[in-house]
Structure formats: C-alpha cells, structure tokens
C-alpha cells in the first residue's frame, strides 16, 4: 500500500530527487488549458447576460470564476489521463506532463481539488442546481469523453462536444436556478459547431492522431467521408443558429449577424467539401478551423451586441 511518504521515497524509476510540486507557475496554468477556458468564460458570460432575471454582480463574477476553474480542472484531469497520447502528438507534446515539468499524480490531484472547490464554491455563491450541473460537466468531460469515448469511437467529439457546450447553460442556471428550454439553444449552437470544428483540425492533423492511436473520424473512415460529414454537419448547424431568435433570447441584430456568420461558415465548409486535392484541398480545413473559432466568439458576441442594442433602444425610446 502506498502512502504520502512514497512521494519522497526514491525508487529505481526516480533516481533523482523528485518531490513533485516542482513545476513553474506557468506549467500549472497551462494544465488549465487557458485558451479553452477563454471560450468557456466568454460563452458563460453570455449565458449570464442573456438569462432572464437578476443576479448580483458579485455572484455573477464568482459564478464565472467557478465555471472557468471547473473547466480548467477538467482540462487538468484530461491532461493527466491523456499524458501518454499527448506525448506522441506534435500539437500536445509540449504540455507540462509530457515535458516532465509536472508529474501525472500532481495534475490528477490539482484537477480533483479544483473540481471539488469550484463546485462547492458555485453552490455556496449561486445555487446548488448550477453546482450540480458544473459537477456533471466536469464528470462528462473527464470520464465520459476523455476516459471512454476519445479512445473508443470516431464519434468521440460528437458526443463529447456536449461538455464544451454546457457552460452557457450552467451560467443561465446560476441566474434562474433552473434548466430552461431557451438555454438549450445556446448549448445547441456550440454542440453542433463542435464536430465540423474538430474534424477540420483532425483532417490536417491526421498523422498525429494516427501515431497516438486516437480514432478520429478521418483516421477511421478516411478524409473524403470526413469532408462529407463536415459539410452535412455545417448545414445542420445553420437552423440551430436561428434558435435564439425563435426562443426570444435575441432579435434583429443577432439575426443579421448570425445569417452572415453562418453563411461564411457554410462557404468554408463548401470549400472543404468541394476541393479535396492539391493546395486548396489542404488549405480548406485549416481555413475552416481558424474561421470556426472566430465564428463561435462572434455568434455569442452578436447576442451580447443584440442585448446592448435593445437596452439602448429602450433607454432612448
């Protein structure tokens, strides 16, 4: 049986002094996947603003912080579990665990402590419904997606994408205390966006995923079938973009922006679908991947702009 002293007991595999906790602050920060966290914070902020009802500004701030930390915690748990495949992929080989800056056990405890802390704090600051939702999201990302789906099915990111789509719903629940149908429209926008976004990445990182043995769609069904799927999913995403208007969350400013942004998304997806060979065939997925990041920020930004426009109009009228 191991105990805490095992951490400082030198073994054959740890010839040098290894206490853990030796990483730089930046390494622990990197465990939280700050770039993913920025998207989570932004979409969650939109959920807070768009939800009906009032929330104290301080409670809103703490809620956002807890959702961000919860997302970061699942990132740390993901890096702990995926350290073996991260080491084999160029995109992830510089992460703190494969680089040797942080030990796997540290990342696990770091993730667990932050998970529990963020859930408890959210429960105390906002409400326990939102806290339960956050706990479920962390579980979904770390266990359902990372430990189960990612290595077992090419549909991994289709189902696993739900974890990244929950934050605006959690934020909504922080305000209302319930899970409303209208908030599902925010979820669906991210959920439907995830497959074309990740499959575009997987198309130009096929070699990486092949080396690591991760069954991403292009590695399982081939690049051609993936380009087809990107096209059909992008088309399916279009009506979903209209849902916030149908549910009364947003109005004309968002409607116009969403129409333009989604039209451009479909145009990028069409390029991926139509041009499969040569320079254009290579460039298409990269362009779609880059645009898809901008798209999600812009769509949620448009909802905020729409809400600001309505407030300004009401103040003026």
């Amino acid at each position: 049986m191991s105990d805490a002293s095992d951490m400082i007991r030198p073994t054959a595999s740890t010839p040098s002094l290894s206490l853990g906790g030796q990483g730089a602050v930046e390494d622990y920060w990197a465990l939280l996947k700050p770039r993913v966290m920025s998207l989570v914070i932004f979409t969650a902020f939109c959920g807070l603003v768009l939800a009906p009802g009032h929330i104290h500004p301080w409670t809103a701030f703490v809620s956002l912080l807890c959702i961000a930390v919860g997302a970061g915690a699942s990132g740390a748990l993901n890096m702990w579990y995926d350290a073996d495949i991260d080491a084999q992929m160029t995109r992830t080989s510089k992460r703190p665990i494969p680089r040797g800056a942080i030990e796997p056990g540290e990342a696990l405890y770091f993730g667990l402590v932050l998970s529990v802390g963020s859930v408890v704090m959210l429960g105390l600051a906002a409400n326990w419904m939102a806290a339960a939702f956050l706990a479920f999201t962390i579980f979904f990302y770390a266990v359902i997606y990372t430990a189960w789906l990612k290595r077992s099915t090419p549909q991994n990111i289709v189902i696993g994408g739900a974890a990244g789509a929950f934050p605006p719903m959690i934020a909504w629940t922080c305000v209302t205390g319930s899970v409303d149908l209208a908030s599902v429209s925010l979820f669906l926008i991210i959920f439907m966006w995830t497959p074309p976004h990740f499959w575009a990445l997987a198309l130009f990182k096929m070699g990486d995923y092949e080396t690591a043995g991760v069954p991403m769609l292009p590695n399982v069904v081939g690049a051609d079938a993936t380009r087809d799927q990107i096209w059909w999913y992008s088309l399916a995403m279009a009506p979903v973009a209209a849902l916030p208007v149908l549910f009364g969350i947003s109005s004309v400013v968002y409607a116009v922006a969403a129409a333009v942004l989604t039209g451009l998304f479909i145009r990028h997806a069409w390029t991926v679908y139509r041009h499969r060979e040569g320079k254009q065939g290579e460039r298409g997925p990269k362009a779609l991947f880059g645009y898809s990041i901008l798209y999600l920020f812009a769509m949620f930004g448009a909802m905020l702009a729409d809400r600001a426009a309505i407030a300004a109009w009401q103040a003026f009228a």
Partner: protein
Amino acid sequence: MSVQDIETYEPTREEAARRRKRSIAIALILLGLMALVFVTTIVRLGGMTGN
C-alpha cells in the same frame, strides 16, 4: 537517498526562483480565496436580511 538527504537538499538557483514564484502564487490565491468567501458571505447575508 533518505528523507534526511531531501531535507538537506540545496535547490539550484532556478529551482529556488521557481519555488519563490510558486509560493507567491499560492499566497495570492489563498488571499483571493479568503476575499472571495468573505465578500460572497456578505452578499448572501445582505440578500437575506434585505428579504
């Protein structure tokens, strides 16, 4: 290597600098957490007394 060896281990300059930054970060996080819990309690209590 015994626990005593570890206790007398002299960190390199780089390790000492990293340790210092970690300690400052932990101190700031703890202070932030204290402030977070304190203000949250005041806000929640304020809401209840308001009712």
